[in-house]
């Protein structure tokens, strides 16, 4: 255990309301994407099956949570990625003074979300859908 520093930034409502509408919306959207993705990512790490901490039946329930969160997180990342490529964000993001690291991340992310990627495949098949049929592998894992 350790102390964790959190930096709090407070803007006056007037400053936020004075922002250009598209910029304010972008500010709010990016925050929403981050809030949701961070929660899901943290829950996924917290809930990963770990024999050091849990035993049956809790250990097996962790697999259930991990599957659910993989699907939700992939779906949310995919949906956020679509918004980033859509107006008005697609017009606004290139004009931002992003660091070299930010531009590098942007290009890596574009590859990770492209058609056929793992995230795209999960989004298209499992994220918010149920298959019509489920199969079991043979032999069934214990």
């Amino acid at each position, binding site marked *: *255990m*350790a*102390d*964790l*520093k*959190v*930096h*709090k*930034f*407070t803007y*006056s409502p007037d400053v936020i309301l004075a922002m250009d509408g598209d910029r304010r919306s972008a*500010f709010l959207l*990016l925050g929403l*994407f*981050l809030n949701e*993705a*961070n929660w*899901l*990512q943290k829950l*996924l790490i*917290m*809930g990963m099956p770990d024999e050091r*901490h*849990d035993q049956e*039946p809790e250990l*097996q*329930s*962790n*697999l*259930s949570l991990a*599957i659910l969160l*993989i699907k939700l*997180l992939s779906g949310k*990342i995919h949906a*956020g*990625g679509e918004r980033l490529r859509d107006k008005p964000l697609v017009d606004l*993001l290139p004009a*931002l003074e*992003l*660091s070299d690291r*930010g531009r590098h*991340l942007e290009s*890596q*992310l574009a590859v*990770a*979300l492209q058609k056929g*990627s*793992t*995230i795209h*495949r*999960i989004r*298209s*098949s*499992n994220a918010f859908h149920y*298959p019509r049929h*489920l199969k*079991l*592998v043979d032999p*069934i*894992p214990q």
Partner: protein
Amino acid sequence: MYLTSFSGDTLLFLSDIAAVEALVSATGMDPQEWNTSFGKLLDEVIKVAGLYTEFLGEALQALMDEIPNKPEQQELLIPDARPLDAVRPKFFAFSVSSQSEE
């Protein structure tokens, strides 16, 4: 299959095995190598989530830098924060309504 004494509070582990099979197959991995494929999938999703949140953080910072009025800043301290993998969510727990029914 695990059932508690509360109706509907059930965990069917076989369904999760089948769900992993569907997930792994949909991403083009080998369902027979169940454990390895699922581990790879988990690693990939966590890696992309890291890229996504880091990029969004950079973009949000760039947007904040454009705001002419600087915000008030304050440092808060969360004492005794635990590592994420040491915080364990529990499935087998009482809900408030279940307890009140007892």
